[in-house]
C-alpha cells in the first residue's frame, strides 16, 4: 500500500526538530520525536510521542500523546496533551505537521491558565523559576 501524500511529505520533509515515521503494520500510527526548543527548560531533550489518525481523520483530529515523561502544565502523567487544536479548535485544514509544530510551540510557551496537570500548573504559577528547574531536571533525567 502506498503511503498517503500527507505522510510522504511528513516523512521526507519534517519540520526542524521534529521527526515522524509510520509503523510498517499500521500506516495510521506514527512514532514521533520532538526536540526540546532552545531557550525552554526542555532544551537538550528528545521527547518521544505517538500519534494515531482515527478513522474519521481529517474530520476529527489526530490523537497524540507523549511517551517520554515531561514536567509541563499542559501535559499530564500519562502524556496526554491539553491543546485546543487537538479538541474543539480542530479543523480539517490542519495537518499532522501543524499539530506537531503546535506541540513544539507548547513546549516553548506553557499555558498554566489552561492546565491538564493541575499540580504542575500551580507550581508554574506560584514559582516559575523553581518549576522550570524541575522541568529541566526531568528533561535531563528522562529525555536523553
Amino acid at each position, binding site marked *: 500500500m502506498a503511503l498517503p501524500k500527507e505522510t510522504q511529505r511528513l516523512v521526507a520533509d519534517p519540520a526542524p526538530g521534529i521527526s515522524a515515521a509510520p509503523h510498517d503494520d499500521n500506516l495510521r500510527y506514527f512514532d514521533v520525536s520532538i526536540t526540546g526548543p532552545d531557550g525552554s527548560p526542555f532544551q537538550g531533550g528528545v521527547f518521544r510521542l*505517538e500519534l494515531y489518525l482515527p478513522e474519521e481523520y481529517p474530520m476529527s483530529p489526530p490523537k497524540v500523546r507523549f511517551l517520554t*515523561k515531561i514536567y509541563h502544565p499542559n501535559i499530564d502523567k500519562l*502524556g*496526554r496533551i491539553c491543546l485546543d487544536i487537538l479538541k474543539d479548535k480542530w479543523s480539517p485544514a490542519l495537518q499532522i505537521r501543524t499539530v506537531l509544530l503546535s506541540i513544539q510551540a507548547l513546549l516553548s510557551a506553557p499555558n498554566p491558565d489552561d492546565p491538564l496537570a493541575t499540580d504542575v500548573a500551580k507550581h508554574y504559577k506560584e514559582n516559575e523559576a523553581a518549576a522550570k528547574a524541575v522541568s529541566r531536571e526531568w528533561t535531563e533525567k528522562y529525555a536523553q
Partner: protein
Amino acid sequence: MAKVPRNFRLLEELEKGEKGIGDGSISYGLEDGDDIMMLKWNGTIIGPGHSVHENRIYNLKIECGHDYPDAPPEVSFLSRVNLPFVNAANGKVERHKLPVLANWERKSTLETVLVDIRKEMAAPSNRKLPQPPEGSTY
C-alpha cells in the same frame, strides 16, 4: 479498516472507566496513575443480586500486556471467591474456562470482561455455590 493501537485503545478505556460505567456494578482504573504503559489495572465487581454474592465487593487485578487488545488481559481475583473458572489456590481467572477470554476478540474490553464475570456469578449453576468468608483475600 483503521486499527486503533494498544495505547490509544487503553486511553479510551481509561476515560470511559473514569466517567463511570452503567449502574456502577463494575468499575476499573489504573493501579498507578503514573504507569505510562498502562500495564496494571484494578477492577471491582459488586456481587449480583439474588445470588450468594449479593452485597459483596470483589477486587480484581488485570494486566494488559503489550499485545493487548490482540491478546486478552490476564485477570485475577484478589478477593477470595469460589467459581469454576477461578483457580482456588491463587484467584487467577482461567482463560480457557471463561468464554469472553477463551473466545477473545479485539473488540472485547476490560468492561466486557468484568461484565461477563459478573454475569457468570449470577448464572444458575454458580449463584448458590458456597463462598469463602466475606473480605478474605488470596
